[in-house]
């Protein structure tokens, strides 16, 4: 199969959706020029400025107008480049998009997608390096997607655009440029279905987004250096959350490490770890550990950035701790 980048894969998904359904429009800053990570490249040329709308630097407007458009017949895909910029549009996400369907008694759906790039990428600094999935997944009414590879990026975005509810689609910067095999044809990957990215019997690594890649690297190291067979469960979406797959894996391995790039403290890992503990109490042979960033804004200086944010070696360490008697 041909190999294309994560970013390109999302262009394909968007273009396919736009070809199929003319109510799909894309909005955001600089998207006419392809967006900050090339995730919109070529769309203006194919679909024109009425469906690929360059927006002012007005984040509240970008997401508020997506809500207004979504309840009046469009299916907007709104881009906010860096996830930190969603902070200027949280009212529109939390108080509007998420609540419209419920508080209006099901009169309406809000079929919109918010795309935002998260995670660290080579010293982007404290305001361009974070992961906020914990904010979005706590808010009922939002779906949250966080793909880990180009093929999923394409299929999940296609499903997100299809979805009748607001979906926050988080694309990690570090993997946006990475390539991987992606089918040419148009396809959907369902929200709410975790993937077993690697099978194993000794410990379950529960993860998503870029940390799936780090977990896979860690699994390789664990096998080669320690003869430990790690299973990697890639959640793919946090809401809906496929706890069934998680519990099935952990019931088998009886050990779990939950991994994400976001801060551990108050992070989404707490939800997963708590549910594992609730459901598998007495069946675990080690405490569920969490691997995430240390509690600090993300530093600019390369060694500090690396110290704050986990990669494969931190996952390996955590697994070894669960195996100590």
């Amino acid at each position, binding site marked *: 199969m041909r190999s294309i980048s994560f970013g390109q894969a999302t262009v394909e998904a968007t273009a396919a959706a736009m070809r199929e359904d003319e*109510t799909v*429009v894309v*909005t955001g800053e600089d998207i006419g020029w392809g967006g900050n990570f090339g995730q919109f490249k070529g769309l203006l040329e194919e679909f024109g400025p*009425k*469906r690929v*709308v360059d*927006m*002012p630097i*007005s984040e*509240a*407007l970008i*997401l*508020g*107008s*997506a*809500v*207004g*458009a*979504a*309840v*009046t*017949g*469009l299916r*907007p895909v709104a881009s906010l480049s860096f996830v930190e910029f969603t902070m200027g549009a949280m*009212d*529109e996400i939390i*108080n*509007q998009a998420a609540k*419209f*369907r*419920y*508080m*209006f*008694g*099901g*009169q*309406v*759906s809000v079929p919109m997608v918010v795309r935002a790039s998260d995670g660290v990428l080579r010293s982007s600094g404290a305001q361009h390096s974070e992961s906020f999935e914990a904010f979005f997944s706590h808010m*009922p*009414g939002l*779906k949250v997607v966080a793909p880990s590879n180009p093929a999923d990026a394409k299929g999940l975005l296609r499903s997100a655009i299809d*979805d*009748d*509810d607001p979906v926050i689609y988080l694309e990690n910067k570090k993997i946006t440029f990475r390539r991987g095999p992606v089918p040419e044809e148009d396809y959907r990957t369902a929200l*709410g279905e975790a993937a077993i990215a690697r099978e194993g019997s000794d410990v379950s690594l529960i993860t998503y987004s870029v940390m799936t890649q780090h977990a896979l690297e860690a699994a390789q190291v664990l096998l080669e250096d320690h003869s430990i067979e790690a299973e990697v469960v890639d959640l793919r979406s946090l*809401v*809906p*959350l496929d*706890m*069934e797959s998680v519990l099935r894996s952990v019931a088998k391995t009886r050990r779990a490490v939950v991994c994400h790039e976001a801060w551990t403290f108050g992070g989404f890992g707490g939800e997963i770890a708590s549910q594992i503990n609730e459901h598998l109490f007495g069946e675990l042979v080690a405490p569920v550990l969490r691997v995430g960033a240390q509690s600090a804004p993300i530093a600019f200086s390369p060694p500090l950035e690396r110290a704050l944010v986990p990669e494969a070696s931190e996952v390996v360490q955590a697994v070894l701790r669960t195996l100590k008697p």
Partner: protein
Amino acid sequence: MAVDFKDRESSLEAYRQLLLIRIFEETLEDLFGKGKIPGFVHTYIGQEAIAVGVCSNLRSDDYVTSTHRGHGHAIAKGIDLNGLMAEVFGKVTGICKGRGGSMHVADFSKGILGANGIVAAGTVIAAGAGLSIQSREQDQVVVCFFGDGGINKGTVHEAMNFCSVKRLPVVFVCENNQYAQFTSRKLTTSVSDLSKRGAAYGMSTASLDGNNVVEVAEVSKKAIDDARNGLGPTLVVADTYRFGGHYVGDPQAYRSEDEVSKSRTRDPLLLFEKHLESQGLVDRDQLELEKVAITELVDEAVSFAERSDYPEVHSATDYVFTDRIEGS
């Protein structure tokens, strides 16, 4: 659509709308006092001419966005009265099945994109509805109602700039009732002529007497026609006064009784009654008959709401998502 204020039936219809809002709101005040209404209630009393005048120019497929003080907009845009009343009661027969309440009444089938508890949130939502109309190549119009307090929210700025850039069919109607909660406009707003805010975006602007339904209807007609004809957005500033407190029960220590009672001399209903009588269109007896009829309508809505059930507890998490999601 547009009211012909030379025509008796057409004028009477506008009068009925004013009356319906007034009596609806007064009834709520009464019911709230009796403990029958949950939550808190913001009434539109004193401002009726704005919603009625503006909406008299709208089609059923046009859109409005509204505020925390939204019953008047909803009624003027044609919401089902029983559904509205039952919603304010929190009953399952409410227009939002009891999930919304007074601050979140909406009727998407009538283009009412929702009352909204967040000040000025409707501005950016209206911009999106405008974008949608433009994208779908329709000739609908969006009216965005917001308050003189709301005008200082950043969303107003972002929305007006964008609507102007794209010449979207959005009419911004600022209801300048002099107060934001307990705080006078003068304390927090840098210009006294609020229409200046529109000029900053190269938008058309208009100022009008928001208590005079004839003037509201006529001036807003131009703005709405312009929007419909692709001439872009307008900021309409409608001067008015909030007769009641910010919410029902507000002790109103922040303003004098004198100020309030003076404002009552410019009651939009009285002004319109005088107009109707002086023009010889309607006599006093007819007006009294209308009051009886409208009061009956509202009473029926109350008894509909009272008869209705509360939503069932097991349905509490319905409508979060369009599909059912387990486990979250």
